[in-house]
């Protein structure tokens, strides 16, 4: 097996693609888990159609799973694939443009029937023979028939047999990249514990693919050595799970019960699902009848003394707008997670976008200031969910946490941040001494004290009407309204004192500063690093704290001559920066295709500005 010469690589991008029913998500996940477990850094990007089952064999029905793994640190799932696995003509057609020149393409030749080629809408009758293939290293494998062959004695029905062909493909790729099979085999053993026939079949096919690759000549074998990454215990994690766990961590640190009130919506649903599963940790997960009940029940839970959150995506955030205002005026802690997706309206529900920023920052009736925080990698969703909770609880305010479809579904090896590594969270509970004044504030932070039902002697009433300073009684006194409006604003502004300073990565003496926020971090960092490696001077300042902006933001901006704000929208952060720091000019690079940036296009656009 290891007779062949092995070529060492730094970084490889693989895209598994096939029909929605072909199990590509599972295949991709297995490959990335194995790679992570053997010490590579990995970044993944699952990409699937909005339909549960889009029409078989069509380009619209192609499901893809891209991953980038390497010997060095990996920040993005990669622009172009070194290896494409295409289980049918549609998958080939949809992804060919995304394969690097000279890249390897593995196709299941059995699927290239006339019918399938037509369904895929290919122009040529035999796309495998097409001149376009000159540049590629094509591996034509009769995957379906070989799968059938290897399972002919398994006793399984034809449908089940064919369903396991993805494991044949995985076996091939495992061999090419010298991966061990054991982790995937362990996975089978767990998953098919109660179905020994299926368990055996999967193992058999995986190995058959592996052996097939070993057998046929003309196939290079690569090794991607473990990455030199920080010490620690790692696990693979995606953004939604990381978000859910960040809240668990916060509740534990605050020593409070965790309540989530949510309504399912793509791509946020997994947070709710994970927390429903965490009933085993005492989480009160309430699947509400709609988004409004989701947030309002969470506000009720917060009033009752729980740490409360609600999770959603764009259209759901729109529906929660009115209730966010209630949490603002009631000054109750609450975290609202918005996993952004393609808009407007239902838009492109399974695709990523950053177009809810202004809605989050200013999209409410009345003067209703809310801190806004954005995570920037799948794994740091954990940290920012924790941070959002800490700010909410310690500053008695709703906080909006922005992630996006790319972060939510993307995975990454994560150097586990356990409870020892996290700071304390100390809500400002009423201590029971003296008379309780619901709207008396800490003179430093402007934060009021929290008393909740069950606390003896602190009975009080709150609500959505303007309230008298200190007492919280309803008040229509004109000047009091201005006082309270200003205090609410000031309270949020002062959070600047507890958030970290903004960082810059790259050249301090560059002319050009690239500015980004949220889920584009990996792509922006890679682009900037590559440009620097190529000899250009450039820096990146990527934002996680949106409102308030870190205190040193202006200091950073003024150091650079040129600023390029890159976003997956029409320029909302640029607009926001103009609102706050109008004295600087901001160039924009925007993309609105429901897709993450590519490093290539970023470099091109940054370079253009550098050279201007």
């Amino acid at each position, binding site marked *: 097996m290891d007779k062949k010469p092995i070529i060492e690589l730094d970084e490889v991008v693989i895209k598994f693609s096939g029909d929605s029913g072909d199990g590509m998500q599972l295949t991709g996940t297995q490959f990335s888990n194995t790679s992570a477990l053997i010490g590579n850094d990995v970044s993944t990007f699952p990409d699937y159609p909005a339909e549960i089952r889009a029409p078989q064999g069509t380009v619209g029905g192609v499901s893809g799973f891209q991953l980038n793994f390497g010997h060095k640190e990996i920040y993005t799932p990669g622009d172009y694939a070194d290896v494409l696995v295409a289980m049918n003509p549609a998958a080939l057609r949809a992804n060919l443009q995304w394969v690097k020149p000279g890249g390897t393409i593995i196709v299941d030749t059995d699927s290239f029937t006339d019918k399938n080629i037509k369904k895929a809408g290919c122009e040529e009758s035999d796309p495998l023979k097409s001149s376009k293939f000159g540049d590629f290293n094509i591996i034509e494998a009769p995957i379906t028939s070989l799968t059938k062959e290897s399972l002919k004695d398994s006793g399984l029905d034809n449908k089940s047999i064919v369903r396991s062909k993805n494991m044949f493909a995985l076996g091939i790729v495992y061999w090419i990249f010298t991966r061990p099979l054991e982790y995937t085999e362990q996975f089978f053993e767990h998953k098919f514990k109660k179905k020994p026939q299926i368990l055996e079949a999967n193992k058999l096919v995986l190995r058959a693919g592996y052996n097939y690759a070993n057998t046929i000549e003309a196939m290079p074998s690569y090794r991607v050595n473990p990455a030199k990454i920080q010490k620690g215990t790692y*696990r693979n994690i995606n953004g939604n799970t990381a978000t859910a766990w960040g809240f668990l961590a916060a509740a534990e640190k605050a020593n409070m019960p965790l*309540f989530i009130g949510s309504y399912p919506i793509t791509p946020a649903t997994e947070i709710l699902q994970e927390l429903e599963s*965490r009933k*085993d940790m005492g989480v009160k997960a309430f699947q509400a009848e709609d988004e409004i009940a989701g947030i309002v029940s969470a506000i009720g839970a917060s009033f009752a*003394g729980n740490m409360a959150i609600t999770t959603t995506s764009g259209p759901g955030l729109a529906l929660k707008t009115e209730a966010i205002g209630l949490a603002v005026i009631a000054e109750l802690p609450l975290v609202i997670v918005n996993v952004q997706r393609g808009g407007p309206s239902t838009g492109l529900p399974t695709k990523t976008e950053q177009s809810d920023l202004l809605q989050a920052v200013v999209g409410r009736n009345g003067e209703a200031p809310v801190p806004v925080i954005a995570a920037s990698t799948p794994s740091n969703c954990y940290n920012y969910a924790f941070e959002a909770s800490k700010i909410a609880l310690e500053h008695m305010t709703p906080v909006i946490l922005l992630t996006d479809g790319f972060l939510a579904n993307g995975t990454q090896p994560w*150097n586990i941040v356990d409870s020892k590594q996290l700071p304390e969270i100390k809500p400002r509970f009423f201590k029971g001494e003296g008379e309780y004044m619901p709207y008396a504030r800490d003179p430093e932070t402007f934060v009021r004290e929290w008393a909740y*039902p069950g606390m*003896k002697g602190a*009975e009080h009433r709150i609500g*959505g009407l303007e309230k008298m300073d200190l007492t919280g009684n309803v008040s229509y006194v004109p000047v009091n309204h201005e006082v309270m409006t200003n205090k609410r604003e000031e309270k949020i502004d002062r959070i600047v004192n507890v958030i970290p300073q903004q960082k810059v990565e790259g050249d301090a003496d560059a002319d050009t500063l690239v500015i980004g926020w949220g889920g584009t971090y990996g792509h922006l960092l890679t682009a900037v690093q590559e440009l620097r490696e190529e000899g250009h001077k450039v820096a990146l300042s990527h934002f996680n704290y949106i409102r308030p902006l870190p205190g040193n933001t202006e200091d950073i901006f003024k150091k650079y001559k040129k600023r390029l704000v890159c976003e997956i929208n029409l320029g909302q952060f640029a607009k926001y920066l103009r609102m706050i720091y109008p004295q600087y000019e901001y160039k924009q690079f925007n993309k609105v295709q429901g897709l993450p940036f590519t490093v290539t296009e970023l470099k091109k656009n940054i370079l253009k500005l550098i050279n201007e």
Partner: protein
Amino acid sequence: MGQIETKKYTPKDFKSDQEIRWCAGCGDTAILNSVQKAMAQLGHNKEDYAVISGIGCSSRFPYYMNTYGFHGIHGRAGALASGVKIANPKLSVWQITGDGDAMAIGGNHFIHEIRRNIDVNLLLFNNEIYGLTKGQYSPTSKVGQVTKTSPYGNIDNPFNPGELVIGSQGKFFARGVDILLNLNIDIFKLADAHKGTSVVEILQNCVIYNDGSFAHLTGKEFREDRLITLEHGKPMVFGADKNKGLKLKGFDLEVVTIGENGNTIDDIIVHDAKNPDPSLHLKLINMQYPKYPVALGVIRDVDAPSYNDLMDESIKETVAKSKFKCLDDILYSGNTWEVK
């Protein structure tokens, strides 16, 4: 649910220091009094009451109660109360809501709260009008009613709140009248004892925008003949002389006079509020004057598990079974690896 021992409270203990701002003569004030009286008699600690409302005249209620209170946003009282109760099931949660708050904008939370059987005492102040916004028709306004938004007469067929409660699989429904303090207090006690959503519709007079909407029923002179107060286990009799009653005739209800046409007290239906089958309760709820007397009291009171109890049990069970004792257990579970 607080301590078992009965606290020695007086109604005054439940009065807040805020001046009451309802119109003079508004039915809301009478209801406030009956709630304060009832609470003084119930066994909960004062700090365990949470009085939750939406927006409307009626929803100002929490401000007048010296308990924990939350005046929410319009229509969302049900979701707010649900969150409070699920978050802390020990609390005694009272939801105050109007016909608009609960059945117009809040209709969805209303039906879901009821179907889930969240253990909340839900007092629905039905004045058949939007009071706070100065007199538009509500989803319980009568057909033909002239209001600010129905200058040519309302064409919107009204809900019957109790009927919607049945449709939402409600397990407790009662009907009171603002001015009938003792009836209300009796109902509130049963509502408090019932574990699940206890919906109490209270016919409430809005003296400004819909004065006299229930006067044809509640007028002292004829009240006894036009209203019937149902009590579990008691025959359904009514009338100034307590000689009228309800009798089953095939699948229908009939009003008979005891002692006439051979009808005796034994022909009169004995009220069974505990029957899980809702169809007779529905008939009782739907009784309309003049064909029938309008039913007051606890019409339905059926035991069933509440969502909050099921949630609690389910959490206890899974926590007990779980291998995870703290988050670190989860973080380090499954596929992890070490980099040294």
